[in-house]
């Protein structure tokens, strides 16, 4: 078994990995950038080393430095978490060369699945359905026209090396095709240094449904059922649930088998996720594979009882998966909400800052995976996600009711968060009916952003009373002098300084 794991990550996922290491009796090593000395993962780990300045490129993305630290502190293995270096084949290769176990698939699997065209080809070869489209780099306009006339409009142009919506163009009319391809190619070149693009049929009301898989060195590959991830905003998942209210038992079996086939096709090892698009008629198509742990893995853990990080460590150590496919059940229903430090009512503007107060929800059926705490300053350098709430219920309805209760209980001051927006989704009728696809947020955005109630209700007056007491008691404490200065000089800087001093109270 692995004895010491270096976690090449930060935030909630680093804390989450450290937790499983501790339960297994494995030593954990944290890394921290300048911004992260007081971060939670540093406090939870057995060891912690400074890795560089705050920007990710100079710290959490500096693979050579990370491997150097791993060697010095004699870590057997590196867990990359998600994001940062987790899907970096080069890094996985370097770990191997340095004699350190990379907790993830081989670098070859990462390469194959990382390039979308090669992944599509592999899947077709393995008999896994892919979205109709080209199998190779798009060339002259005639061949493009031929493909489009076969699969039909609308189509989507995608960068083979792409991700995050960059180098993507939706084409609904034939006359826009040529220019869309040129634009996609140029965007792909500037974003990824590679202008290879390909064409896929655009599915109109798709569900984004993914399957968790696990594979060991002994040749066993299992799936841990699906996660429904269609509640997205600009390709960013906000809410995930399992089981999917959309798919049937038969479809689940078919897709599970396809997911295992997909993983076997690239000789996959460890934990991975096969993402599918499922159209309104329940046809499913391979979209891509994430060759790492996903943000939303806890909902699978809650319904199956399997600790996915522990399984990753078993597999990386050369041990078999600790259970059999036939022993797995989906026990009840789980939902995850991602909570970010952002202002949904101001175009989801990120809100880094100091947490003045936080109380997280608790009790039956509630798990939170977070990393911020009172007095902690959320750095501006990294992702705005601060916590994930995972609720479980015997039924989907119970899981939703529990999520509402959990969001109600979640109290945080100091920074703005997405909580109110998530509450609106939980109250939405279509969501409650399980009647949604990837257009859900777009479709309901006006309703979801409408949080202001009648300004003449008693609750509003209570808010006024709170503000009155808070403001006047602060004035008493800091004295009026600062205000006088601010008024006289009338400078924004003073205003800011004053705000800072008020926040410190």
């Amino acid at each position: 078994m692995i004895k010491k794991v270096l976690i090449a990550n930060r935030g909630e996922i680093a804390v989450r990995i450290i937790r499983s290491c501790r339960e297994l009796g494995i030593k954990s090593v944290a890394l921290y950038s300048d911004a992260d000395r007081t971060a939670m993962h540093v406090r939870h780990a057995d060891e912690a080393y400074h890795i560089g300045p705050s920007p990710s490129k100079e710290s959490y993305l500096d693979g050579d430095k990370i491997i150097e630290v791993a060697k010095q502190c004699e870590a057997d293995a590196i867990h990359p978490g998600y994001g940062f270096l987790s899907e970096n084949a080069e890094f996985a290769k370097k770990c191997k060369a340095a004699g350190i176990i990379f907790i993830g698939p081989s670098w070859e699997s990462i390469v194959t699945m990382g390039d979308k065209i090669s992944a599509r080809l592999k899947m077709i070869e393995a008999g896994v359905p892919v979205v109709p489209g080209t199998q190779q780099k798009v060339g002259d306009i005639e061949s493009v026209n031929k493909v489009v006339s076969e699969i039909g409009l609308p189509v989507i142009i995608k960068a083979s090396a792409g991700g995050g919506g960059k180098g993507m163009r939706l084409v609904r009319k034939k006359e826009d095709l040529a220019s869309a391809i040129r634009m996609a190619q140029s965007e792909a070149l500037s974003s990824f240094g590679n202008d290879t693009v390909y064409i896929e049929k655009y599915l109109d009301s798709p569900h984004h449904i993914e399957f968790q898989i696990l594979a060991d060195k002994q040749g066993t590959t299992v799936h841990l059922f699906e996660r429904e991830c269609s509640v997205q905003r600009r390709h960013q998942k906000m809410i995930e649930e399992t089981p999917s209210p959309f798919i049937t038992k038969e479809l689940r079996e078919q897709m599970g088998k396809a997911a295992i086939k997909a993983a076997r096709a690239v000789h996959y090892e460890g934990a991975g996720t096969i993402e599918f698009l499922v159209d309104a008629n329940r046809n499913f198509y391979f979209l891509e594979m994430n060759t790492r742990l996903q943000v939303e893995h806890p909902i699978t853990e809650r319904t199956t009882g399997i600790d996915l990080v522990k399984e990753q460590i078993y597999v990386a150590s050369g041990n078999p998966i600790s259970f059999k496919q036939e022993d797995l059940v989906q026990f009840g229903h789980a939902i995850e909400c991602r909570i970010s430090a952002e202002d949904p009512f101001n175009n989801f503007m990120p809100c880094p800052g100091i947490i003045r107060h936080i109380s997280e929800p608790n009790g039956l059926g509630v798990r939170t995976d977070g990393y911020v705490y009172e007095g902690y300053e959320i750095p501006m350098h990294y992702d705005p996600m601060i916590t994930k709430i995972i609720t479980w219920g015997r039924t989907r309805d119970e899981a939703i009711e529990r999520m509402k209760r959990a969001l109600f209980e979640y109290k945080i001051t100091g920074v703005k968060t997405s909580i109110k927006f998530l509450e609106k989704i939980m109250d939405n009728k279509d969501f409650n009916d399980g009647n949604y696809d990837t257009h859900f947020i777009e479709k309901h955005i006006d309703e979801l952003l409408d949080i202001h109630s009648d300004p003449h209700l008693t609750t509003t007056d209570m808010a006024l009373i709170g503000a009155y007491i808070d403001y006047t008691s602060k004035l008493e404490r800091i004295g009026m002098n600062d205000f006088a200065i601010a008024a006289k000089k009338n400078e924004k800087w003073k205003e800011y300084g004053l705000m800072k001093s008020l926040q410190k109270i």
Partner: protein
Amino acid sequence: MEHWKKRDKKLNDPTQFRNTIKNSMALDIKIGDREAHVQLIKKEGSKATIQIDKKIYEVDIMMVENGVYSIIHEGKSYNIEMIHGSSPKNYFVNTYYSSHELNIIDAQSRYQQNRNKDGLNNGDKIISTPMPGKVVRIPVKEGDQVEKGTTLIVISAMKMESEYKSPADGVVKRVYVAEGETINGHQPLIEIQ
């Protein structure tokens, strides 16, 4: 045992209470379109009598955690979270049942508001951000002629880039920051004249 009985009183002459007040400050607080006049009438321990416009509330109010108040009013239990907005006078308030943006309008803000209304302030267009971040790009320089909507500065925070555009036609009077620089929220970045 009387705390669940209705105690709100509509007053014909709200000023009659004013006489009993000594040091309590009256504040106007803006909430949506409404501007409410709020004043503390009496406070004994956690029990406060507060007048909002013509309505009198008797509440039991305590700050239970940093920025979190517990209010009990006619038996109802309210949890009020005060989140600071862009200035110390700007609050975002969650009551669990609703969210509100509130602005304290004191003499100073009133004065500034009036100044702005009178147009005395029209040379004063300073671009700033509500949150800290890093300057990615400044596509303009001092002296440049810009149109309304021209991108003046691009700020990155938490993996997201935001563009700030000119609010009006004008000239770049001053650039306070440089590309690559780390900035605080509410810091002046660029001034347009």
